[in-house]
């Protein structure tokens, strides 16, 4: 049987069980004698064990079995002691690591040390004794570090041993060689397995997959000197190379059967519709053709809606690991942090959700590290607003100090003092997302909030969203992400410049307005326009795109936001809106800065979608925003 088909399913389901296990464990830490929680946790471990066993992943099975036993002991004692929580979490981490190895096609890590540490615990009365067992928790933590797949040391290769003919007790010899190798590096796996050898399996050859920093000569010298080993040979570990590359992985989505039924029904209706259209065309009954086309258009809209539904995934998928993260991070910083998540049921396109996972974690981590002082609450909130999904990470910590951001701006020579003075708070906070504004090496109390924020902002904007930062001294900060619900289908505003049609994602447009050309004023050659209580700089899109410009009596403005400040793009015409199926750019067009994608219209024409932020960045030399501020 081809197991690879099932591996994907196994991994995604097991990860879901692990997520729930970690949530349940953290809930149990708050409420250690929650009987139902213990039972639920036990069931999760049990499910993993069953699935792993049917897939033949021995170590995953052994470890989940062990956790199941461990949990069973709390079922009888009725509560989960504090030290056990750490151990459970360490076990969950270890399982995650095993899944990672399975996914990468590597052998599962060794779990014996972890299990051995726990078997001691189990041998005694677990509920009471484990608390007083000082070595237990640190040991457990230590063992997870050891198996962290990322921490694999040195090179990875395969070592082949051949035992001399007529070797007495070959299994024992091979085991000795294996022991010797263990001192030189980490053994991923071996064939035959250690267990088989212990059972006296007749060994002629031993293959060991080893990760070691030592050179082959050292290994050869140390192990080759042992009696009865006839030959040692080395091979580079090719297992990873043989694996299909990650981006070729088949991604799967789980679909509710009700939705699938809907598709079947829709298909049926469309088939009927086709017959209707065929017969109407044959009989040249144009009224019927029109009715048929109207029906077809409704069916296509329906289909489109439901196809998108398949891609929609609730936010839960990426927030469910936050409780664990907050717990660990808060503990590391010695702070008391409460986490409240609301709106986990809000659905977004799977692609958006996947790309938001890291930024979300980052913002929450930042809030713990730099926002909250000793004690506080982080609120992750999601809600729908028209066709946007809003996701907010708020804390009630010290907030961002505007004066320290200003100070940093002048220290780094990013703006002149006059420019810095002119910045509104909203614009000012956007600067913490400026690449290199604050780096991990020089985190200060407030500017630390900027660590990695450039990455967060870029991720949000790449998905067609916007990031807003609000902060009040001593009241806390709010990071608000305004995301489109779906990335594949995007509403775009169509504009025209020098006869060319271009699209701008509606999510990036604050508003559009028409003004008379006399209303455009000049200040230091920069076009400006007073809008509400702000003076905003105007830029002809033609110039940004290197297209010829011609004056017009009416100026059409598209107000957008670039680096936190409002900017008006002058376009020649506003031609409407389009629900666009946006295609990402492949090489070499992805190298052309300022384009975020393209769409093909019903007539087969290609319209490129602009990203205003990237456009300005690409044209930074000619259209520097700091120049503008200076000139105002």
């Amino acid at each position, binding site marked *: 049987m081809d197991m690879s088909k099932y591996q994907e399913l196994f991994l995604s389901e097991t990860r879901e069980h692990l997520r729930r296990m970690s949530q349940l464990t953290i809930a149990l830490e708050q409420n250690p004698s929650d009987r139902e929680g213990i039972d639920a946790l036990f069931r999760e471990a049990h499910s993993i064990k069953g699935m792993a066993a049917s897939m033949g992943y021995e170590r995953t099975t052994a470890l989940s079995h062990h956790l199941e036993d461990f949990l069973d002991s709390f079922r009888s004692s009725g509560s989960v002691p504090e030290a056990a929580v750490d151990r459970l979490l360490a076990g969950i981490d270890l399982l995650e690591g095993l899944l990672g190895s399975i996914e990468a096609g590597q052998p599962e890590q060794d779990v014996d040390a972890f299990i051995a540490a726990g078997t001691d615990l189990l041998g005694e009365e677990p509920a009471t004794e484990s608390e007083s067992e000082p070595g237990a928790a640190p040991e457990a933590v230590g063992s997870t570090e050891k198996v962290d797949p990322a921490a694999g040391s040195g090179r990875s290769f395969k070592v082949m041993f051949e035992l001399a003919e007529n070797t007495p007790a070959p299994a024992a010899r091979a085991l000795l060689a294996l022991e010797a190798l263990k001192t030189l590096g980490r053994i991923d796996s071996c064939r035959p397995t250690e267990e088989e050898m212990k059972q006296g399996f007749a060994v002629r050859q031993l293959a060991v997959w080893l990760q070691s920093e030592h050179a082959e000569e050292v290994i050869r010298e140390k192990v080759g000197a042992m009696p009865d080993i006839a030959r040692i040979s080395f091979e580079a570990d090719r297992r990873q190379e043989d694996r299909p590359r990650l981006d070729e992985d088949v991604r799967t989505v789980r679909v509710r059967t009700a939705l699938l039924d809907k598709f079947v029904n829709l298909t049926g209706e469309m088939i009927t519709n086709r017959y209707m259209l065929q017969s109407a065309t044959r009989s040249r009954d144009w009224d019927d053709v029109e009715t048929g086309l109207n029906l077809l258009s409704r069916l296509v809209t329906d289909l489109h809606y439901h196809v998108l539904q398949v891609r929609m995934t609730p936010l839960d998928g990426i927030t469910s690991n936050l409780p664990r993260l907050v717990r660990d991070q808060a503990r590391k910083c010695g702070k008391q942090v409460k986490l409240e998540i609301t709106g986990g049921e809000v659905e977004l396109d799977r692609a958006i959700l996947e790309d938001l996972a890291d930024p979300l974690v980052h913002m929450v981590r930042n809030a713990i590290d730099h926002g909250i002082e000793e004690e506080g609450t982080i609120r992750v909130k999601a809600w729908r607003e028209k066709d946007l999904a809003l996701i907010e990470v708020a804390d009630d910590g010290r907030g961002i100090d505007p004066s320290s951001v200003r100070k940093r701006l002048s220290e780094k020579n990013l703006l002149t003092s006059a420019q810095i003075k002119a910045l509104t708070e909203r614009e000012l906070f956007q600067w913490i997302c400026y690449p290199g504004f604050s780096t991990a090496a020089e985190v200060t109390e407030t500017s630390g909030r900027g660590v990695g924020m450039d990455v967060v902002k870029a991720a949000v904007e790449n998905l067609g969203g916007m990031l807003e930062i609000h902060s009040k001294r001593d009241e806390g900060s709010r990071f608000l992400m305004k995301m489109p619900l779906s990335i594949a289908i995007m509403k775009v505003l169509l504009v025209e410049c020098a006869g*060319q049609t*271009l699209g701008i994602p509606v999510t990036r447009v604050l508003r559009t307005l028409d003004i008379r050309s006399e209303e455009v004023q000049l200040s230091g050659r920069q076009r400006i326009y007073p809008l509400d209580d702000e003076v905003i700089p105007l830029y002809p899109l033609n110039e940004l*795109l*290197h297209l010829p410009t011609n004056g017009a009596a009416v100026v059409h403005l598209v107000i957008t936001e670039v680096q936190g400040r409002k900017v008006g793009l002058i376009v020649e015409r506003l031609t409407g809106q389009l629900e666009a199926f946006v*295609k990402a*750019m*492949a*090489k*070499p*067009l992805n*190298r*052309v*800065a*300022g*384009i975020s994608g*393209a769409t*093909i219209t019903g007539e*087969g*024409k*290609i*319209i*490129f979608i*602009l990203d205003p932020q990237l*456009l300005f960045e*690409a044209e930074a030399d000619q259209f520097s925003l700091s120049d503008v501020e200076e000139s105002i």
Partner: protein
Amino acid sequence: MNLVLIFRLADEWFGLKVDDIQEIVEAPELNYVPRAPESILGAMNFHGNVVPVLDLACYLGLGNQAYGERAVVLPIGQTVLAFGVTAIDRIVPFDSEMMLPCQQEEQKELHIGMLYNHEGQMVNMLDLPSLLGSLETI
């Protein structure tokens, strides 16, 4: 059987293995690509793919305005690209014995991997990986 497509760029003959080609399109409709470099003629809609058409003669510096309304579309993969060429000549069987190594540095700069002697007609065989690699910095 191995085949070679021979096409003209300004005044020179070039060749590409037919296996490296998806299709030849006559006079494709070219759509405006914002901020594209000069050598990009535009983008064509190729079966729903957005395919930029590179004016190969211009890109290689062999001449401007040498595009002759013929686009050679490369297989859609990691790179999505078509070459705008001056003229399509013909497809000939490939005989590996008629390959000659390049002697001059200039040829390498123009991404010419080998010369192919087709019945006395010298054809510059494009070194596709080298050419596509150079587009990274477009």
